[in-house]
């Protein structure tokens, strides 16, 4: 199984996210992360998601997406052709016995402390998804209270845009 990142430009219509996710659910596409946001134009929204599957499943997913009238353009974003990053906040139990170890890891990963209290603190980490996964693995040695990740935001390298790719 491979992981694919797809960016989809859709009409900024009420309920458009529902239309996409309804199709994913109905056809049992395995979506592991999804972000939706407004774009440079009020007319469009951008939905970026990660999909786990084989190449033919990905092709089927793209074909099904193109059948939704609200979908304007789709691009597959790879490590080679795009830049991406994700944001994570992780809330750790504040335990004086291990605080030093946690902070050593945080420093190595470039995580920032954005909240601090007697019982807990929140670290913020920005980077690619593997970095998040690695950091979580490290933190599992301690007490994680809560994790929140945004999912991947990706842009194509160079001057190409999703809007240029609108064919419909």
């Amino acid at each position, binding site marked *: 199984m491979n992981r694919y990142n797809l960016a989809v430009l859709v009409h900024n219509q009420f*309920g458009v996210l529902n239309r996409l996710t309804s199709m994913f659910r109905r056809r049992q596409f395995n979506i592991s992360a999804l972000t939706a946001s407004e774009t440079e134009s009020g007319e469009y929204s951008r939905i970026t998601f990660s999909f786990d599957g084989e190449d033919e499943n990905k092709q089927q997913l793209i*074909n099904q997406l193109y059948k939704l009238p609200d979908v304007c353009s789709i691009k597959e974003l790879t490590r080679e052709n795009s830049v991406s990053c994700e944001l994570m906040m992780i809330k750790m139990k504040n335990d004086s016995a291990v605080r030093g170890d946690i902070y050593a890891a945080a420093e190595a990963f470039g995580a920032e402390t954005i909240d601090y209290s007697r019982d807990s603190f929140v670290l913020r980490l920005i980077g690619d998804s593997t970095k998040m996964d690695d950091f979580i693995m490290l933190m599992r040695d301690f007490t994680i209270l809560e994790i929140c990740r945004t999912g991947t935001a990706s842009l194509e390298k160079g001057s190409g845009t999703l809007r240029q790719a609108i064919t419909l």
Partner: protein
Amino acid sequence: MLLSGADILVKTLIEQGCDTVFGYPGGQILNVYDSLYTHQNEINHILTAHEQGAAHAADGYARTTGKVGVVISTSGPGATNLVTGIATAYLDSIPMVAICGNVPTTQIGSDSFQEIDITGVTLPITKHNYFVSSVEQLADTIREAFRLAKSGRPGPVLIDVPKDVQIAKCEYEPKAVVEKETPCAAKEIRIEEAAEYINSAERPYIYFGGGLITAEAQEEMLALAERIDAPVGCSLMGLSAIPTAHPRFLGMQGMHGHYASSMAMHNADLIVALGVRFNDRVTGNRAKFATKAKIIHIDTDGSELGKTVNAACGLRGDLKLTLEKLIPMLKDKSRSEWTEKVNNFRKEEEEYLDNREVLTPRIAICTLNGFLGENTAVCTDVGQHQMWSAQNLVFRTPRRFVSSGGLGTMGFGLGAAIGAAYGTKERSVLITGDGSFGMCLNELATAVTYNIPIVVMIMNNGVLGMVRQWQTLFYDKHYSNSILDRKTDFAALARAFGADGEAVSTPEELEKALEKAFAHSGPYVIDCRIDKDEFVLPMLPPGGSMDDIIVKLEVE
């Protein structure tokens, strides 16, 4: 001109060439019905007994005409009653526009009386749907819905119109009938690839489905068959596309397909698939399906290519335009060896034919064939009678076989037969079973009210025949809840509705009853008594392949 939303809705329907709509009024669509009253000289509304019947009627109208079928209902239960009808149209790619009323926008989301989120409900069974939140959007939304419904691979589109939008006023300017998206041929390079495969094939088989009817590419398909000297078969949805008697035509293939057609497909080294989607009822066990064949798959919907079977060559494009480009690239060939093999399959099929002289399903349908006009639409419900119909009906004109192929909707037929009668402007026929007919027979009332000539032939065996067949073969004859044992007298029931009918139990009686039925001015119900252990044969067991085909069966 300044018009209310309701008037705009009706005027836009008329503007888009819609002259017949099917539906049922209710609280949240009253304004539209008021407008239909005003415009009754320009648009004909057929009131059914149930919204489901209206949806199936719009579907039957669309299937027989190729136009967009239109159905109108109120909010809540009216809208949910459309669901089966919309899903039926969706699975068979039938162009339909469903219009529902809803509670005023100010009440949306508050669980008002008869409020339902119908756009949410129908999301997975429509090509697209719309909630119209202002009257200014209404006319263009309807136009866009028509365009979507008929473009590319057709399908149903739903428009939800809140009551205050029907009341509010805005300027309306009539516009031209929307054009469907311009169809395109497949990519040149793919066509060249396909031509290479076809030119090097020795045992080609052409396999078409409903997509061929939509694309009106029959002539091109037959030209292809002549050019490469190939036999032709189809899916259930492809029936009636070309005359049944065409010398190259082997009939439907698949689970209950014609032996020769399924065998030709199984033995082919190349399948040219046109407007089909290789449904499980067509392929059986996909791992064992046509293992010797390379598949050239042409469809206007790219998502069908490689969805269920791997094609050697997948071409996304309009069938007609693609075939036009493909045919000149093909070598003119004749294949006596393959033709002989196929002819032998035909002979074998003849040998398997059921030639008993009692009122068998086959005799019933063959007798009916003698009464069908060139233009007569024959509708079916779902089950054994549907398969017997698909196997034995003789067609001469496209769009005259109306059957729920994808969803397999029992109760589809009577509504569809009403729509088909309006679509063809002549008598239609419904072949049904006692199980299916029991589901939506309320529409007899509609047929009587409008004096719609429909010949209803019920293949009455007192059981759910297809369920029974499976229970006999695969469930140790545990006839769990498949024995109807009802005391319904269908002829008396027909009379109670104001129609007429009779029961028959021999071929001679059926012949006489059909004579009467085809001369009758309104609906006529023939209760055809057949044996409960009649089987649909041949049969590919579910998950089986052509090696497992059952062609003859003795039931103890």
